[in-house]
């Protein structure tokens, strides 16, 4: 039978497509979070579309807001000019204080290091199956990004780490609220260590804390511990909102992350974290 005749048999074609998908799934499942070549190609193909749409949307929304806010901005501008005057003076004083504590070369070096380490990026897409699982940002290999780099929101709170697929101008970020994530954390109050993972519903759980352990305080802040050698120590993660001792051997510790998924427009990827922390 010729290929064109085969294609005309609708049931056979549909059956072949279903088998193709079942083969894809059976090939993907043992790979876990690793991505296949076909997925990488499709990600590279469609992420520019996402980027273009979000960028255009931002430009249109920005223009509309600019027109709407013209009168208010004028008033604010006068107020801000006054504030800038005082802030400039304060800045000069602070710079002077910094110069006294650090040598000029050291100061320039450390500032240069910070600028090279933080890569600002914009969110261009959310996960289609669960938006608390992953998102896509508009920076990639061309900006020196690779997998397993910490990603923070604009306030410096941890949101996740970079993951595959890595394209030249797009990369996926696995959020800490995903069930697949794992972050070594420690509580500020009683230095309780644990592994933080997401529950897929916007919250996180600190796992493997024994029920018999007195550790864990409600309201306590959670920071990264750095033991996983992926996230540098001291990054703010969230706050414990509930601790319950279940029948199992481990406590159930629920953490509300500091980042808000709806506020994630601009994020910061931290590369060469070992250098900046040295």
């Amino acid at each position, binding site marked *: 039978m010729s290929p064109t005749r085969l294609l005309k048999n*609708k049931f056979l074609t549909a059956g072949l*497509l279903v088998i193709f*998908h079942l083969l894809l*799934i059976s090939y993907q499942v043992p790979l876990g979070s690793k991505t296949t070549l076909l997925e990488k190609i*499709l990600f590279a*193909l469609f992420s520019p579309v996402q980027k273009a749409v979000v960028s255009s949307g931002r430009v249109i929304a920005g223009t509309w807001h600019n027109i709407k806010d013209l009168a208010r901005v004028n008033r604010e501008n006068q107020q801000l000019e006054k504030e800038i005057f005082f802030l400039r003076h304060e800045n000069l004083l602070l710079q002077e204080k910094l110069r006294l504590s650090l040598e000029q070369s050291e100061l320039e070096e450390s500032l240069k290091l910070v600028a090279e380490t933080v890569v600002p990026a914009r969110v261009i897409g*959310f996960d289609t199956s669960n938006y608390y*699982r992953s998102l896509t940002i508009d920076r990639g290999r061309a900006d020196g990004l690779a997998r397993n780099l910490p990603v923070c929101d604009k306030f410096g709170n941890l949101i996740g780490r970079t993951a595959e697929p890595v394209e030249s101008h797009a990369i996926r970020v696995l959020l800490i609220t995903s069930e697949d994530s794992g972050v070594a954390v420690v509580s500020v109050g009683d230095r309780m260590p644990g592994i933080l993972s997401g529950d897929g519903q916007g919250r996180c759980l600190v796992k493997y804390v024994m029920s018999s352990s007195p550790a864990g305080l409600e309201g306590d802040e959670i920071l990264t511990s750095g033991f996983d050698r992926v996230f540098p120590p001291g990054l703010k993660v969230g706050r414990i909102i509930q601790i319950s001792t279940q029948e199992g051997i481990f406590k159930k510790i629920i953490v509300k992350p500091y980042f808000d998924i709806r506020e994630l427009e601009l994020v910061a990827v931290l590369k060469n974290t070992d250098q900046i922390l040295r």
Partner: protein
Amino acid sequence: MVRKGFVLVLGLLLAVALYALLGWLEPALVMLINTFSILVILTAIVYGELDGAIMGTCAGLAQDALSHGVFGLAGLSLTISGFLAGWLSRKLDLRTFYKRSVFIFILSLGQLFIWTFFYYLIFRKSLLYTQPGLYLQPALTALLTAALVKLFRRVNPTV
């Protein structure tokens, strides 16, 4: 043939663009409105079961590539629903908006069921529990797709 291919590729790009726009406006909208599912069912009703199944494969793989899950899962459910949508729409009387909406609602529910069923088989977790917004997805897909089919037929009465 070439014109139809061009329309289908354009449709796929539009689905990705709309999905990105919805996510940018409000992340929860991505769960409520599945642009890929709408595209597949629309293609199947307008062009037939074969085009529906092929579009199901393409759109499903695009959806899988843009999410951190098992690659092929959405592709499988959309291929099946694309084929069934085209095949059944030829056999049933779907001339009114109401009948079309009910038909698409049942199909979309089936597609969601296949997807969550395979997801549960692999991850042992129910997506319907973690993402309750998914319950509304079939209703919205039905209304939007039925309206789009009507619009498409008004613009091009030959299809």
